[in-house]
């Protein structure tokens, strides 16, 4: 199968959906002429023009609010927040409006919008530009949270998100954009249903739960664990809302051990919810306490050594797994 980069997979997904459905349009800061700060919309203005690829002012709450209004008006907007960090600026629109207006109005309106936002740390961008805050949005009912780890999943899930009749927050990791991976030819339609996890590496001794960039760290940790004679399963939920709980329970019931890794802060992270549910559902099947790996509870520091100390790594995963497997 051909290999393309993560950002190229995103461009293909958007272009295909825009060709398919006239109601789909993009809006965001520097997505048009500039091509996107991470090149994820490169070439789209040339193909679709200024009407459907709209450069916006720097006004994140406004961008999300306009996209919501356009969805109310029958369009299918795909707004880009230049970075996930700016979702914090748009928090009221996302949490109070996008996520609530269907329920609050008794299901009168469908709100099909897909908010794309690149986030994550590890590139020395300092405290305000290194967020992995997907847990905040999983905590807010009413918006789907999709967070792919490979070019294949990025393409298939973005296409499904754009076709979804509900609001989706589509989280991309900045360090994933240049990652290459196998993706079917454009002639083959690639759609991945939300709520379907994928086992990225099978194993019998411990389940490593990871999403987004952490999947790649988990795969590295699994390699290292294999050298110690431990066969780790790497399990990627791919979407955090909906979450494929049954598949997770099946994996952990088999391996009887679990490590959850996320790049976000450990305290009250998605990992905390996963650990809580595992003990509720599988208390007697577990051979060891569920381990959590996550970021240190500090604003991400700039200095390279401190940033590396703050963010979780493949080694942290390796050590956490080793601790419960020996």
């Amino acid at each position, binding site marked *: 199968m051909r290999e393309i980069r993560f950002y190229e997979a995103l461009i293909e997904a958007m272009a295909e959906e825009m060709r398919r459905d006239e109601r789909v349009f993009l809006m965001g800061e520097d997505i048009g002429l500039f091509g996107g700060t991470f090149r994820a919309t490169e070439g789209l203005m040339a193909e679709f023009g200024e009407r459907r690829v709209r450069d916006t002012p720097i006004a994140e709450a406004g961008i999300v609010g306009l996209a919501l*209004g356009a969805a*109310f008006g029958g369009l299918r907007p795909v707004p880009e927040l230049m970075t996930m960090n700016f979702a914090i600026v748009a928090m009221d629109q996302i949490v109070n409006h996008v996520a609530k207006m269907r329920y609050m109005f008794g299901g009168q309106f469908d709100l099909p919008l897909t908010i794309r936002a690149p986030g994550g740390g590890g590139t020395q961008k300092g405290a305000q530009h290194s967020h992995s805050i997907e847990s905040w949005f999983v905590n807010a009912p009413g918006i789907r949270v999709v967070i792919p780890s490979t070019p294949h999943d990025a393409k298939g899930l973005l296409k499904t998100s754009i076709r979804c009749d509900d609001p989706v927050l589509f989280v991309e990791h900045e360090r994933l954009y240049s990652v290459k991976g196998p993706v079917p030819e454009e002639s083959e339609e690639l759609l991945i249903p939300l709520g379907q996890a994928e086992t990225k590496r099978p194993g019998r001794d411990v389940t490593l739960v990871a999403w987004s960039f952490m999947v790649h760290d988990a795969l590295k940790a699994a390699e290292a664990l294999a050298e110690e004679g431990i066969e780790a399963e790497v399990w990627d939920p791919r979407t955090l809302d909906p979450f494929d709980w049954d598949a997770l329970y099946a994996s952990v019931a088999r391996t009887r051990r679990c490590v959850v890794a996320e790049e976000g802060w450990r305290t009250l992270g998605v990992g905390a919810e996963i650990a809580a549910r595992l003990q509720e559902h599988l208390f007697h099947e577990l051979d060891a306490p569920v381990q959590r790996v996550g970021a240190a509870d500090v604003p991400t520091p700039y200095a390279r050594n401190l940033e590396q100390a703050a963010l979780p790594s493949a080694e942290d995963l390796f050590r956490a797994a080793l601790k419960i497997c020996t």
Partner: protein
Amino acid sequence: MISPTDQIKMYRQMLLIRRIEERIAECYGEGKIGGFTHLYIGQEAVAVGAINALNQDDNVIDTYRDHGHFLVRGGDPKALMAELFGRVTGCCKGKGGSMHLADAEHYFFGGTGIVGASIPIAVGLGLASAYREDDHITMAFFGDGATNQGVWHEGLNFATIWNLPVIFVCENNFYGIGTDVRLSSAFTEVHKKAAGYGIPGYLIDGMDVMEVRQRCEEVVRLVRGGAGPALIEARCYRYQGHSMTDPGRYRARAEEELWRKRDPIPRLARQMLDAEVVTQERLDEMEREIEAQVEEAVRFADESPEPGPEMLYEHMFRERYPSDPHA
């Protein structure tokens, strides 16, 4: 010139809002309505005059003081009262409440409890119209307090740079809850804030429904014709406190009296009687009809069932997944 039929229609709408809200206040006192309830009494001429200047398929979006706009847009008084009572027959099936009325059938995109937040959403509705090149326009209602919120400015800026068919209607009642506009705004003449975006700003008397209607019709014509967004400041006064729990101690009684003398409802009644558009008998009859309509709405709400427990997880998403929480 507003036709006699339209004058009577507007009078009836204003009176319905007034009477139904007086009854809402009583029901609130009886504990039948919970949470926050913000009355529109005093400001009726704005919703009635402005919304009647629109077509039925134009968009309207609102704040939390939304009973009046909901009714003028065509919302059912029974569905309003049932919503306030938290009943399944409410316009939002009892899930929204006073601050979150909406009516998809009548292009009423709801009330939000967050000041200013409806502005970018209104502009997005305008974007949808421009994108499709249809001739619908969007009217957004908000208070003077909203004009100090960041998203208000973001919305006006977007509407201007993309030349969108949106009319921003500020109901300036001079108080953001209890804070005088002179203490909260660097610039108290809201309509002049339009200059910051190079769009027209109009000042109108929000206590005169005929003026509101006529001036809004002119603006609607311009905006529908492609002139881009416009800002209207309608000066008006809410007779009650900010919400049901506010006795309004921050306002001088003399000031309140002054505004009550300009009450839009008797004002239109006088005009119509003088012009022999309507007789006193017809007005009295209308009063009785509305009283019956209000009582019917209360009875309907009272007799309607609450939403069943199975509805707790309904209406979250159009597309459901097995792992979604369910009753």
